[in-house]
């Protein structure tokens, strides 16, 4: 590959810091898969917060039909039990899912390919050849920013997998990673 300098390419000392792994080894889905790096642990809090907000909104909206049902029929017990069951399930999800999802997510970078794995039941492993990167976005919502996190969004020229998201990275690390990937992979972008 030609090594013409890309705009915005940082000095390559960054690649050294990129490869320096913080070695949080997690159990991998693939038999014989080598060390995947996990996301920043704070992402569990982020996801939990997202799901809490969702559960609160959803529970609130659900209260409307419950109320109407209660008024119509005059019986309050069963609708209330139903609502509690649903909220209980959501509560379990809030407790359990983020931690499990955190363990499922992982990424691995070498000089040619970025691998991202995810999924609890429906698992996937996406392999992105770095020379196929068209551009990289760095996204951080308000809660993410508050936690010091950011997501990377990778764009390829592909069709189904044209957009690949890697969430829950520590913000400065996300920036480093982006700069590194743009420098390494961007050299044949059009």
């Amino acid at each position, binding site marked *: 590959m030609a090594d013409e300098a890309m705009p915005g390419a940082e000095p390559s000392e960054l690649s050294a810091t990129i490869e320096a792994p913080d070695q949080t080894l997690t159990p991998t889905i693939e038999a014989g898969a080598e060390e995947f790096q996990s996301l920043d642990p704070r992402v569990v809090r982020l996801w939990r917060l997202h799901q809490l907000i969702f559960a609160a909104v959803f529970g609130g909206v659900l209260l409307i039909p419950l109320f109407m049902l209660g008024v119509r029929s005059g019986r309050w017990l069963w609708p209330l039990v139903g609502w509690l069951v649903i909220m209980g399930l959501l509560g379990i999800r809030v407790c359990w899912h983020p931690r499990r999802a955190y363990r499922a997510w992982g990424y691995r970078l070498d000089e*040619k390919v970025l691998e991202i794995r995810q999924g609890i039941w429906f698992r*996937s492993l996406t392999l992105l050849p770095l020379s196929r990167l068209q551009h990289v976005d760095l996204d951080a919502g308000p809660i993410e920013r508050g936690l010091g996190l950011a997501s990377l969004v990778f764009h390829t020229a592909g069709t189904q997998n044209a957009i690949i998201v890697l969430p829950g990275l520590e913000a400065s690390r996300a920036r480093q990673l982006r700069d590194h990937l743009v420098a390494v992979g961007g050299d044949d972008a059009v």
Partner: protein
Amino acid sequence: MPSEPPTSGGLDANPSQAAGAAGAPFRGRLHPLTLVFAALDSLKSFLVPIIAVGIFGRGDGAMHPLFWVFLALPVYSAVVRYLTFRYRLDQGELITKHGIIARHERHIPLARVQDIRIEQGVLHRLFGVVEAQVETGAGKGPEASLSVLSRAEAERLRQAVFESLPAGAGATPAATRGGEPMAAAEIIRTIGLRELVLEGLTSNRMASVLVLFAVGLGFVDDLVPRERYEQWLREGGEMVARLSARYGESLWIPLGLLAVAGVLVSVGISVVGSIVLFHRFTLARRGEDLQRRYGLLRQRSSNLPRRRIQLLKVEEGLLRRWLRLATIRVDTASGASDEEERKSGRDVLLPIVRRDELPALLPQLLPGLEGDAAPWRQVSRRAIRRGFLKGSIALVFLAGGLFAVEALLRAPRWFDIWPLFLLPAVYWLNVISYRHLGYASGRFYFQTRRGWLGRAWHILPLRNAQTVEIRETPFDRRHGVVTLHLDTAGQSHTGGAPGIANLPRAEALALARSLARTAGATRYCWR
């Protein structure tokens, strides 16, 4: 890339070439006949108001002032277009300018130009002019339409644009490049009238429906108990008899004639359509470029550099497979997929070809394919069992549903669960599809084969592969298998490479990593 003018990198490296083949800066304007053709073109859009004025113009018809206004506008716009339209090649860009009051200026980086298509309608041909459409990877439709130019001028433009491109843009694996930019065109394949008739006959949807119907009828005849079958026939007959009692004696004859006529007309339309579209079809190769030229009334020609093939599909529909014929489709990175593409024949690279020609023909489209032989591999045999299980569940539900309906309406009989009789067929079907499902992973190309009645064969140049993905459902996990997907750009004509399900996990993982690494070691190239 962020805010970086995309042309600067590659093209400025070769400024001498960018100056154009003629040595002087390339500039030009439209052919004087633009006055006529542009006026005719925009007249079409004023046709409705003109007719409306003619009819409702309170009797004074052609003398109504609006009539003249509507007539004058197209002429005016044609005159403006002809007088103001200029184009030039400058600094690695194709720049077009037109307009008096609102000036439009468009800069198209030459590196982005995918193709300059040349089309020539019947009227154009009388006067020796063409429409040139500059195609880029961006979205739908041409980026610029130069209409009309003389044929020679269009060729000159095409040459100037493509020769200004850096020759070594993409490192071809088994490359034949560099030394022969002006090589003579070598004809790969022409399609004669007889084959076009075949194309029309086999592309006809009506015909394939009829064949399936005939096959299905024979099937029903064998499977359904005689009494039930006869009852159906009787009921159908009674209905027709009732109709004929109402509408006259011999309803059969016109009905039959109607059906035959319908089939003949639709087959005829399909054949004529195929001949009109693809008349004198020629696929040629000139250096790296594949050139196509075809058309009876409207002649079309287009260029496709071989390296820009994202994915190639050899498609054998049911009818074509029986006749040992196939169609070749390719994807380019410009993903325009619409009716227009199909109507203009751009969705196929080669509309029809004999299957036994493929081994000699494909390496001309995909260089290095002949030396890239890799053994065909099959997926896990569990595919049969899993497919059969899925099919069985569907059939059991169907049979149960039918039985329940019959039980509700009248007394059910044992053969109301007839879907279950199809179980052996489903098993056989899964065995057949398993046998024809395979992949071959070479150094430069990844190939897949699939299908039971119709077949599809996909060939994916790895340097145009985008991402590799492995997916695993909970059911997959129990069988230790996964599905492997390769993503490509475009996909509008081939539908993308199929995912390969039921691959043993370790094998898939090793394969995915080697594919991603091979793809990553090459540069992806739009041009």
